[in-house]
């Protein structure tokens, strides 16, 4: 577990989210996926598939119930990717 791993995850999430939305919002770790980026459920599920491929992990979609912000999504990916490291 390193800071650079976490930063890499956050940076990729911000990049993918930016490509996915037409909203004029600067995306930061505190950005709310629903209220600020208007990401609907289908887009979010498809984004998860992209993230799974980018980091070679399996992210159960039921884990998304607790995710509202970019930071919470980054925490989830980080936890799954490096849980056994």
């Amino acid at each position: 577990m390193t800071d650079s791993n976490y930063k890499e995850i956050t940076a990729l999430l911000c990049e993918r989210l930016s490509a996915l939305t037409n909203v004029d919002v600067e995306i930061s770790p505190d950005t709310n996926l629903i209220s600020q980026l208007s990401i609907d459920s289908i887009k979010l599920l498809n984004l998860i598939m992209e993230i799974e491929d980018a980091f070679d992990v399996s992210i159960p979609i039921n884990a998304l119930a607790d995710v509202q912000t970019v930071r919470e999504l980054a925490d989830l990916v980080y936890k799954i990717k490096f849980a056994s490291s």
Partner: protein
Amino acid sequence: MNLLEKLDAAAAARKALLPDGVGAFGVPIEEVYSATEARIGDRRVLLLGTNNYLGLTFAPECIRAAHEAIDSEGTGTTGSRMANGSYSGHRALEREFAEFYQCSSGIVFTTGYQANLGTISGLVGPGDTVLIDGDSHASIYDGCILSGADIIRFKHNDPADMEKRLRRLGGRVETTLIIAEGIYSMLGDQAPLAEIVEIKKAYGGVLLLDEAHSLGVLGETGQGLVEKTGLLKDVDFITGTFSKSLCSIGGFCVSNHPQLEQLRYVSHPYIFTASPSPATIASTRAALELLRKGNHLREQLWRNCTQLYTQLKEAGYRLGPDPGPVIAAIVDTPQQALMLWQKLLENNIYVNLILPPAAPEGKSLVRCSVNAAHTQEQIQYVGDVFTRLRALI
């Protein structure tokens, strides 16, 4: 936002899509004249918005069986099979489904929705994994959520993507349930079952196939995609519904795994609900018999499907990849879909309007369901109206 205001927000979103006076969802059907015609408002319409694929809703054999069952057993069972008992009809229908699919056992559920909910939540639980097609029906998603298992999606009808995700699960594949559908309800396309079976054989896992839309439609005797592909023995669990080709309400699961019987003791959607009524069971049994012998119905259905699919394709509509009883015209916006749906109704044709997020990938669909009872002239008329309306979108 409080609890009730959340519903107000949902109502506002619906109203933004559907102006007052447009009742595209839950259309009131005042009278039903036949398997292909009904009255909506003061219009006599052609029904292309039902899932009556074999056109058996008015089959005399089914109506007679339902009447006799009401006369002899009453209108309802008034309770669950676990607490209140199983009628001979429930058990007979389970045997008939098992025999139809050459399986050792079968279970009947009260609805098709509950068949998926009950089977999936009975088979997997917390700590297990379900690997599902991204375009799966809501009953599959809800069954997975109810189970508490980890839910992983693969790209719709993409075996390579499925393989990648199954491989990624590593040792967890041993407790993984893979789920696909014979025919997908939105675009009418069929699962690449041969590839799915090969991947499952290579990596492991248990395979469940939902034949809801393919029962009665595919295969020599109407078993569905398992029969069309010759892969019946390679699928672990098959679920399906009575509410499409069998023209009643209910669902089933069949399997050669003896553990299927245990679902009766662990599956809440099976245990905590009233069992199907005697009339429902009796008409379903009669319909299953007609379905098995219904090659002539399947031939007529496929003639109708091919005719309409070809006509819409030639008119320039974007359609799903496979001709079949579900033929969906894909349009760019919800507004275009609504306009097309309204114009069709003005021309006395009733179809289904499907707007995001119900359709995959944010698509908007105007969906036709073709059946074996439609005449060639009816299908031609529908195709001609669609062709005329093409210029509007």
